[in-house]
């Protein structure tokens, strides 16, 4: 949301361009704006003249309002923090008996945050200078077709939950949007689907995740199947495998504990 740097002389014909420069890219946040003001005014960060900086800060918010930029709530929070710091500085320091108890500068916390933020901003600049893959350097991206969807190797890593949900989301997106609403029992239970899934993978080394979702795809079907797979995982009757991230997810039966689990399954869903 940045304002295009319009030529100054056409917009404000009588304005002195150096008198009121509006930074055209929007600020990342209140800390960014404060750092900008501190640098612009060339003040010592450990001795920020709060009143003046606050005034400029508020003027800037006003300007953003005039330009119809959305002012995020964080900017307002920072404004009230600045005012609070100023009022604390105006209050006389409480008289402390022990001299070693030094009253902390009300600005200290803010200064710490500003410096910390500045650190990461510079780190971000340095990251931007790295040779970015796909910008400065390029590598071959395509996998030779016969390697695509390769069978998992001997010890493929287990699938992360986030990736499983990603796969589920991709499947749900394939479900055609129903144009009418029909109320009625689908008559499909998770237990049914579990048995179907088990039938499908029985005796096989593994099948792909997609193979379990054969047409006709409905939301219920996809969801019930997904829950069935999760249940099977929980019961340790199947294993989910993936050779590489973004790769095909494979479902493999786990034979050893199968019988004990099947009994539990029976108990849970027999009622």
């Amino acid at each position, binding site marked *: 949301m940045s304002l295009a740097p319009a030529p100054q002389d056409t917009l404000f014909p009588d304005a002195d361009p150096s008198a009121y420069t509006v930074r055209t890219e929007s600020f990342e946040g209140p800390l960014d704006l404060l750092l900008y003001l501190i640098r612009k005014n*060339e003040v010592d960060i450990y001795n920020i003249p709060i*009143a003046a900086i606050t005034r400029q800060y508020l003027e800037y918010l006003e300007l953003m309002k005039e330009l119809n930029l959305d002012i995020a709530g964080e900017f307002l929070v920072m404004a009230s923090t600045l005012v609070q710091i100023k009022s604390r500085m105006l209050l006389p320091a409480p008289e402390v008996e022990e001299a070693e108890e030094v009253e902390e500068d009300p600005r200290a916390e803010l200064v710490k945050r500003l410096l910390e933020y500045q650190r990461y901003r510079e780190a*971000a600049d340095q990251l931007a200078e790295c040779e970015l893959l796909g910008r400065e350097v390029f590598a071959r991206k395509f996998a030779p077709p016969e390697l695509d969807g390769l069978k998992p190797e001997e010890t493929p890593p287990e699938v992360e939950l986030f990736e499983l949900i990603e796969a589920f989301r991709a499947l749900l997106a394939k479900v055609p949007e129903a144009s009418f609403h029909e109320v009625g029992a689908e008559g499909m239970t998770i237990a049914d689907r579990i048995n179907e899934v088990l039938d499908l993978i029985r005796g096989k080394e593994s099948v792909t995740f997609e193979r379990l979702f054969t047409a006709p795809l409905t939301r219920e079907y996809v969801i019930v199947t997904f829950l069935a797979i999760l249940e099977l995982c929980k019961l340790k009757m199947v294993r989910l495998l993936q050779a590489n991230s973004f790769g095909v997810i494979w479902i493999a039966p786990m034979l050893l504990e199968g019988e004990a689990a099947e009994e539990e399954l029976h108990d849970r869903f027999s009622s």
Partner: protein
Amino acid sequence: MTASALKSIVESLFFISDAPLTLERLCAILEEYDKSSVEAAVARLREEYAEAGRGICLSEVAGGYQLRSHPENADYIRRLIRGKTFKFSRSALETLAVIAYRQPITRAEVEYLRGVDSGGVVKTLLEKKMIRILGKKDIPGKPLIYGTTRDFLEAFSLKDLASLPTLKDIQELAGAFADAEQAVLPLEEPAGEE
């Protein structure tokens, strides 16, 4: 077999692989060779690419090695692929930097450091596989904690997390500010609150 034959095999492997190959992986594939000769072949290959002024480098990224185009030729490659280059916004870079240096870190901690809501950026970075969920922090609310991925190292041509540029010292940063002499603020009005 000779060293040059091994070097040729290694080169072929790098050529076909679409992700960085680690030394371990190479050694597992080349089981009939000992580790030191595989290492030597990789090193020799790297040198040869660097010396001969080729358009390809064997770069050390994300714990492995990968054949990549020479950075100087980026302009021409961009012409070839027409505008489909990778770009990060300021906020994405800032968020990535915070997460990279402070991982494992929660979203709330990122937001405190940046001073702005970072939910959207974190989501985008997750989708782009630059960061991942490492788990949950054992504090009230059990917030998710995030860290960077291998893809992040690959994208930024980093060997490992240790080769991130070192963070500047707070003192050093404060010094840069202090250099600017305390000037009288133009906006300070005489009828002052000071």
